[in-house]
């Protein structure tokens, strides 16, 4: 590697030799159960032949540590940071120096006693285990390395210097949850984008979290009753109820049960909605950040920097859609993709009337088209695929019901199986209706799903690359699933089952130029 000077040490460097004291201690610690096993095995055979196993285990751990020290090397050049590890499985990780975002220096108690520190070089890549970990360097070396990385990346890119200089915090925490009284509270010159209308609580029973909350409370309640040791039929009102149920026809019981369940779910979900969303307010700070405050008992305030915002998701689950409501959440970088329906802190609007959701989305994006534009449907083949993919469920149910009936089960099974057909057909039809995509302004819009329908609006600037995936059946049908990868939100936003030429033209228009080298206008002969 040519060295541009500036007094850089670009040679390969090793970790501190003292790491040989850290690793065996830690790994012998981890291996203690196995070692105990070996000792016991040595004892059990009695004649002493196995006694050497335990010392051998310790030796092995030490040898592995020494090998690791010998094979781990790193270097920093003007262009890149490189780390080499492994004897049998050799691995080299290289990253451009100006992509270094964070340098974490940490030291456990053991490290501190030995005057060592662990250096973790983060590139912002979310891949687990893909960071560059140097375990361990001498404290002086670690501090020097941090300075060195800062020095390097300050030269080629100006806005990263600050990020690298902080040792313990990620580049810029985009979302913070802190009490309203905190510094992030909305100020006077904020513009209000949304404020909760108390009438919105009517949507609570139509949210999944409301239903699940009710089920959870019922479950905990029944377990409590069990633990107290009271049989459920001993409770006065329930005993009366059971006695009453014995004297009325079955369908009356079912209807009453359903009505009771509806009341139960409604009360609990409305309570839950009020607890978490009461007083919800979304404001925009003129310096480029969005703030939400919410909560009845515990108030929560969240700030989202707009430069970290790459778009938003409009969620319309089936039940919410039935009452013309929707929910909004932001697509932001810097947070690991969260599991669950509404990525927690990036929530922008609780279940609210669809018109309100659209208006808020337009205000947040600064462009009303992405949430209003009519989406391009994916065509008859995609529709056929929705139905084909839905069929196995009722088929299995019908076969199972047939077998059950043949063995003399109750005819209710047949009814369930028969009902599953129209339900599946309706779901498939709705899934096809939901399917669509569009390019609106600088945003890629894609929508899919039925039970959990979502319209994703992703800023094309936030798209990092494309994955074009085709199963065997998709290849035969000429369809593909085009996935835009991004560093924000769910990390991937898919346009499902779209015809190949349309997928390509969409990708080409969203990120002009990227595909140019790989596109051919005429159908190419199949190669290879």
């Amino acid at each position, binding site marked *: 590697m040519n060295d541009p000077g500036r007094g850089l040490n670009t040679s390969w460097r090793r970790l501190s030799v003292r790491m040989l004291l850290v690793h065996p201690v830690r790994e012998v610690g981890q291996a203690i159960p196995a070692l105990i096993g070996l000792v016991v095995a040595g004892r059990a055979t009695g004649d002493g032949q196995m006694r050497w196993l335990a010392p051998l285990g310790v030796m092995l751990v030490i040898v592995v540590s020494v090998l690791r020290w010998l094979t781990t090397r790193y270097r920093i050049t003007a262009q890149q940071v490189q780390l080499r590890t492994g004897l049998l499985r*050799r691995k080299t990780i290289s990253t451009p120096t100006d992509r270094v975002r964070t340098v974490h220096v940490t030291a456990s108690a053991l490290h501190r006693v030995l005057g060592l520190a662990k250096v973790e070089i983060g590139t912002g890549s979310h891949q687990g285990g893909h960071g560059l970990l140097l375990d361990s360097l001498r404290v002086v070396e670690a501090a020097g390395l941090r300075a060195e990385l800062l020095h390097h990346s300050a030269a080629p890119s100006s806005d990263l210097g600050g990020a690298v200089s902080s040792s313990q915090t990620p580049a810029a925490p985009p979302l913070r949850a802190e009490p309203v009284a905190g510094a992030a509270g909305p100020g006077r010159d904020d513009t209000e984008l949304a404020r909760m209308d108390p009438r919105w609580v009517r949507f609570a029973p139509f949210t999944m979290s409301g239903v699940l909350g009710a089920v959870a409370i019922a479950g905990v309640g029944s377990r409590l009753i069990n633990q107290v040791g009271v049989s459920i039929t001993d409770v006065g009102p329930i005993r009366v109820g059971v006695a009453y149920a014995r004297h009325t026809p079955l369908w009356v019981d079912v209807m009453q049960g359903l009505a009771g369940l509806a009341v139960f779910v409604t009360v609990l979900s409305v309570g839950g909605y009020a607890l978490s969303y009461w007083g919800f307010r979304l404001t925009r700070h003129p310096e480029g950040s969005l703030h939400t405050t919410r909560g009845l008992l515990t108030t929560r305030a969240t700030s989202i920097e707009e430069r970290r915002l790459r778009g938003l998701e409009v969620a319309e689950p089936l039940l919410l859609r039935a009452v013309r409501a929707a929910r909004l959440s932001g697509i932001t970088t810097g947070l690991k993709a969260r599991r669950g329906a509404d990525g927690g802190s990036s929530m922008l609007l609780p279940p609210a009337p669809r018109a309100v959701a659209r208006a808020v989305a337009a205000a947040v994006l600064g462009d009303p088209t992405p949430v209003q534009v009519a989406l391009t449907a994916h065509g008859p083949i995609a529709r056929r695929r929705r139905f084909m993919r839905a069929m196995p469920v009722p088929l299995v149910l019908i076969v199972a019901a047939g077998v059950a009936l043949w063995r003399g089960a109750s005819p209710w099974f047949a009814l369930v199986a028969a009902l599953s057909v129209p339900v599946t057909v309706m779901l498939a039809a709705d899934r096809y209706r939901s399917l669509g995509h569009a390019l609106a302004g600088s945003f890629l819009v894609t929508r899919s799903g039925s039970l959990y329908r979502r319209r994703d609006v992703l800023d094309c600037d936030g798209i990092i690359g494309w994955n074009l995936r*085709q199963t065997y059946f998709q290849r035969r049908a000429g369809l593909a699933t085009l996935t835009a990868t991004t560093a924000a939100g769910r990390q991937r936003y898919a346009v499902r089952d779209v015809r*190949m030429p349309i997928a390509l033209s969409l990708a080409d228009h969203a990120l002009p130029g990227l595909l140019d080298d790989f596109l051919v206008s005429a159908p190419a002969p199949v190669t290879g």
Partner: protein
Amino acid sequence: MQLRDPVHLVSSRAVAYWTVRAVPMWILVLVAEFFWFSSSGDRTGLRVAVPVVTVLLAGTHLIVMPRWRYRVHRWEVTSTAVYTQSGWLVQERRIAPLSRVQTVDTERGPLEQLFRLANVTVTTASAAGPLRIHGLDAATAEGVVVELTEATGRSEGDAT
């Protein structure tokens, strides 16, 4: 409009490598069958048929799979982008602009070192988009890594 295949095939030694790598699994299956039949009673027909079928399946798999993979697995690096194609029944093409590349890794397992092969993984800031090239010639892989890191070093910004 069509997307053409990436230009380069991986190393032809990858075919042998994939074959050798798949052999132990089939040996395990055969050994398991051997023990199974040596412990069970006398069903001579089964005793002959099952291993024969297994050997046939193994032969087909060992002949077809590596060659099919070899034809699908392709890669290309241009001055602006990385482009890979992989898979078998489910095929996937991935494209990432060099300006968004975060790290370039090479990895060589013991068996791969024997065949002088290497894997190259190109990661971006998205958890969804690492591009992997399996079974590259080790020297080619070194060249690709140098080329990629130099190209990505030229572009600025934090690539999110």
